[in-house]
C-alpha cells in the first residue's frame, strides 16, 4: 500500500513550509516561467551564471507542497554547481521520477542524490509526478536559454 508518509516526508514538508532561495534576481539573470496548466502550479526560476557556475538561483511561484518543495530542494541542490554538474543532477532526478524498473533505486545511488532523494516516494503517486518535475523542467529550459 502506498503510504502518505512516502509522499509527504518530513524534509518535503520542511521545504514546503520554509522554502529556500525564494525571491527574484535582476537582469542579466535569466528568468523562465513554468506552468502546469491543468492544476495551476507555477514556478519562476531566476538564474545567474558566472564562469559556467550557477552563482545564484531564486524562485517564486505557487502550487502544491510537492511542486514547491521540489523547487526548493532543486535550488539547494544546484546552487554553486557547474552547468555540467547541474545537467547531470537534472538527468538523475528525471530518472528518479520514471516508473521504469531499470532505474537504480539502490541506497548508494539514492545517497548520491542527497536531499532530493526525498522525492523518490512521488513515483508511487503517478498523478503527482508532474508536480515534482515542473521546477526541473523549468530549470532545464533556463539552461537552454542562457546566452552562449
Amino acid at each position, binding site marked *: 500500500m502506498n503510504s502518505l508518509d512516502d509522499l509527504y516526508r518530513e524534509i518535503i514538508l520542511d521545504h514546503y513550509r520554509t522554502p529556500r532561495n525564494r525571491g527574484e534576481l535582476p537582469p542579466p539573470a535569466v528568468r523562465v516561467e513554468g506552468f502546469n496548466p*491543468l492544476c495551476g502550479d507555477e514556478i519562476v526560476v531566476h538564474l545567474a551564471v558566472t564562469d559556467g557556475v550557477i552563482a545564484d538561483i531564486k524562485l517564486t511561484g505557487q502550487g502544491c507542497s510537492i511542486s514547491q518543495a521540489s523547487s526548493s530542494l532543486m535550488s539547494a541542490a544546484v546552487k554553486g554547481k557547474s552547468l555540467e554538474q547541474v545537467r547531470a543532477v537534472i538527468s538523475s532526478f528525471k530518472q528518479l521520477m520514471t516508473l521504469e524498473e531499470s532505474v537504480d533505486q539502490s541506497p548508494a545511488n539514492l545517497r548520491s542524490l542527497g536531499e532530493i532523494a526525498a522525492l523518490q516516494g512521488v513515483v508511487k503517486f503517478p498523478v503527482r509526478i508532474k508536480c515534482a518535475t515542473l521546477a526541473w523542467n523549468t530549470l532545464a529550459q533556463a539552461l537552454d536559454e542562457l546566452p552562449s
Partner: protein
Amino acid sequence: MATFDARMVRGDIAQFNRVINNHPLTYLDSGATTLPPRTVLEAMNRYYELHHANVHRGVYQTAAEATAIYEGAREAVATFINAPGGAEEVVFTKNATEAFNLLAKSWGASQLKSGDVVLLSEMEHHANIVPWFQLRESHGIEVRFIGVGDDFRLDLSNLDELLRGVKLVSLTGMSNVLGTINPIKDLARAAHAAGALIALDGAQSVAHSATDVQDLDVDFLAFSAHKMLGPTGIGVLWARRELLEAMPPFLGGGGMIADVSVNGFTFAPPPARFEAGTPPIAEAAGLLAAVRYMSSLGMANVAAHEADLTADALTRLAGTFGERVRIIGPSNVVDRGGVISLDVQGVHPHDVSQVLDQHGVCIRPGHHCAKPLMKRFGLSATARVSFGPYSLVQDTDALLEALADAVSMFG
C-alpha cells in the same frame, strides 16, 4: 407521486460498494460527474443487446425500435424541462460544452455582428466563456461580464448599464465553484426588457432542482447527461423553435440534410439539422432512463435533500475548523446548491485532495474551469466538495475526519 430516499438511490449504485484505500468510497465529486444508477446502465445494455441498429430511415423492426428509444429520449427531456415546443426543440450534443459551441458558432455567428454584446458573468465555466471569445475574434463582438461581489453573488447594481447593447445574456444557473444559485427568472425579465435573449447554463442546476424553461422564461438551455445521473457522451441544447429554425447547421454530414446533389445541399429542419452523423444512441437510452429516474425521485425532493446536507456540512465545517478552512461561497443555504469550495489555510488543494483520497474521500482540487472567478478571489485553486442525490450525512462525517488529518499533517 415521487418518492425519495437517498439510501435507496445509493443502493442503486454499485460503486458505493467499493473499498478505496481501506475505506468505503465517499464520493463527493458530483459537480464533476454523477454516478449513474443501475437502471441507466441496464437501459444502455438493453439497447446494445436487443435493439442495436442505426436510427432513422431503417425499415426493419430493430431500426424502428432504436429510433423509438432515441426519439423517446428527446420527448422525455422535453417534458423534463417543460419545453413549450416539445421534442423538436431538443438538440442532442456531446455535452454542455458542445451545446455552447453550437450556440456560439451557429446562432452567434449568424445572428451577431461586430459591436454586438454578449453578457456573461465572472462565475461562468470556461465552456460559457471561450466560445464567445472565439466569436469576438472572428466576428468582432464584445464580451462583457457581470461581476461577483464579496458575498459570492452576482453584482447586479449596475445591471441596466451592463445590458446596454446586449443581444444575449448567457449565465450559469448554479456556480460550479461557489454553489451560488443565480436569479435566472429575474435576469430573464431584465434581459428581455433590454431586447436581449438569455441562455442558461444548466450543467450544475438541472440535476439538483427542477428546471422549467417556460417558468424561467429563458431562450436557450445547455446541459450534460452525465451530471444528472446519465452517461457521458450526450448533452442537450434546448432552444425555442423559432430560434433553432433561424440557425444554420453546425456540423455537416449524414442526417442533417434535406437534399444533396453534386451541385450542393439543403439542410433538414431542427433538431436533425444539428445532429450530423450517427448520434449517441446508447447514451440517449441512458439519458432517457436517467430522466425517468430523476423524475421518480422528484426534483423538489432532491433539492431539499441536498440543501439539508449542505446546511449540515457548512455548519460542521465552520464549527470544526473555524478560520482554518475558509468557504469560498455563500455561508448559508439560501439560493445555494450543494457545491462547497474550500480554501484550507496552509494546505494546497491538491494536497488536501491527496490526503482525502487516502481516506477514500473523492473531492476535486483545481480551478474548476473557472479561472476568471479564481482570479476574482485571489485563488489559484480550491478543494471542492459536491453532493448528489445519493449523498448522505455519513459522507460529511468521512470528509471531516479526513480533512482533520490533512490539517494536522501540514501543521
